[in-house]
């Protein structure tokens, strides 16, 4: 095992080893001599909420505190469906009521402002200090605001939304689309790799096209991409040709796609090839790990958090597990599904560590469904395991919807996308 166990931690392991075994014998009876183990989880998204719920589900004796400032969490998955007019914001909002009442998780509507890894404490905005035996950090992403000249958080809130954190940003972009004239131009600017939800910008283009085709058919969508290729590219392009011929143009980075500057006043963006004006401009800036990960010193030079791929424990600060978009997870994409899979692995590993037992070798999964039209769904699936080089995709597994998939297949995948959303939401927040 590559776990870095300090003397203090090892003493803890001795104690928890005894407690864990006693629990094993007496079932749910909690031995009086065992101090209750405390896990604090920062972030109530796909990763953090899944980890909190599964910690409690798999070992109800653990005290779990979930720190999340938002009373309602709006998911990025299906936020493109809102832009396409197929869902409302209410449909993609989830609360923490059941995690509190059904699972006994202590949910604090607060945000973490500091982590002291040596003392094992988290300081909250309210001033409250939480002690933990193990900490899970699932902070999602932060934007590199200075990466594109002229872009800023305030520009994103007024003129050019990123809509890459769901909520007010989704509503703003949706309103702009509703207000746009027939014959208008929508510009979508995805960042280079790595970033959250690799197929997200292209599903977005598809579902905006779905709306425009029905309501404003003279309009166009221009994707100015920093990359020279993108997720599920062949499948998306085939879908666009089938459903929205001539409506969506994609330009790669080397062919004038890379946006270096924006001007909110004239609603224009600048690439190496010139200036493009848009009626609605969606800038998705380059990203890095969420703020608290930086504050706590959990990031490396890449701006993301290195972790032990078996347990998602930070390789910088033992006792802290980093999951979701913020962590470096080898071959896994940054997705809600991946975050939830990692949250469950972290939860199961933490329980084993509390019991003084070796965590089981991890197995991780991701499936990203993308909708191109109402009856046109595609997906990429992946099963991941541990290799000496880190997390890899199991050879021969996973992959994309076949390029020659027929209409029935695509319709079934569209239905499964909906089924997936219902089940993953229920599995995490329900």
């Amino acid at each position: 095992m590559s776990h870095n166990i300090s003397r203090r931690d090892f003493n803890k392991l001795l104690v928890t080893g005894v407690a864990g075994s006693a629990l094993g014998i007496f079932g749910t009876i909690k031995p009086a001599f065992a101090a209750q183990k405390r896990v604090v989880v920062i972030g109530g998204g796909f990763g953090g909420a899944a980890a909190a719920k599964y910690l409690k589900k798999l070992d109800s004796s653990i005290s779990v505190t979930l720190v999340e400032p938002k009373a309602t969490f709006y998911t990025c998955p299906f936020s493109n469906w809102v832009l396409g007019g197929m869902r409302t914001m209410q449909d993609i909002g989830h609360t923490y009521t059941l995690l509190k009442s059904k699972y006994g998780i202590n949910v604090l509507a607060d945000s973490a402002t500091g982590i002291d890894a040596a003392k094992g404490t988290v300081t909250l905005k309210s001033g409250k200090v939480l002690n933990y035996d193990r900490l899970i950090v699932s902070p999602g992403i932060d934007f590199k605001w200075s990466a594109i000249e002229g872009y800023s958080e305030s520009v994103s809130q007024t003129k050019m939304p990123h809509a890459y954190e769901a909520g007010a940003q989704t509503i703003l972009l949706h309103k702009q689309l509703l207000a746009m004239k027939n014959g208008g131009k929508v510009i979508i600017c995805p960042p280079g790799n790595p970033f959250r939800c690799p197929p997200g910008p292209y599903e977005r283009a598809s579902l905006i096209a779905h709306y425009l085709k029905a309501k404003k058919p003279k309009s166009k969508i221009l994707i100015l991409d920093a990359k020279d290729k993108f997720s599920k590219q062949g499948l998306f392009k085939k879908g666009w040709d089938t459903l929205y011929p001539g409506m969506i143009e994609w330009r790669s980075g080397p062919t004038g796609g890379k946006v270096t500057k924006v001007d909110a006043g004239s609603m224009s963006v600048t690439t190496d090839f010139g200036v493009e004006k848009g009626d609605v401009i969606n800038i998705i800036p380059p990203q890095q790990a969420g703020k608290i990960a930086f504050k706590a010193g959990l990031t490396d030079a890449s701006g993301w958090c290195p972790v032990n791929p078996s347990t998602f424990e930070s390789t910088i600060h033992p006792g802290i597990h980093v999951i979701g978009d913020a962590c470096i997870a080898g071959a896994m994409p940054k997705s809600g599904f991946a975050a939830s899979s990692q949250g469950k692995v972290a939860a199961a590993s933490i329980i084993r560590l509390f019991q003084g037992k070796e965590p089981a070798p991890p197995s991780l999964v991701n499936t990203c469904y993308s909708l191109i039209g109402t009856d046109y769904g595609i997906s990429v699936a992946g099963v991941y395991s541990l290799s000496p080089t880190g997390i890899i995709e199991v050879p021969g597994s996973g992959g994309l919807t076949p390029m020659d998939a027929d209409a029935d297949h695509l319709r079934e995948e569209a239905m499964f996308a909906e089924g997936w959303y219902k089940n993953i939401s229920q599995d995490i927040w329900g």
Partner: protein
Amino acid sequence: MQVTIRSLLTTCFVSSALLGAGAEATAATNPAQKAMEPNPRGQILSLSCASCHGTDGKSVGVIPSFYGKSPEYLETALKDFKSGKRYSTVMGRHAKGYNDEEIHLIAQYFGTVWQNNK
């Protein structure tokens, strides 16, 4: 259940080293306890399935539920999805990610986890 117990014994090396094999042997001979403690590898292989198929395999949407199915049924289904004998849009791509032993562990996990919820 043979696999579950053997695997528990081998993976619980820390507590066995600390306590001797006594505690584990007690757990292993108590049939009620066997159901409570899933095979840890089986558990970690299985938890991600819930994201599409629902918690413990109890689906609330159009994706098929497998809550309450037997280990034998699940093992056959997974192997058939993997070989392509059973048609699927997505499931075959997942099933190909697991070897026979892993499929057996997943089938054991979901084939028994619902009994603990009774």
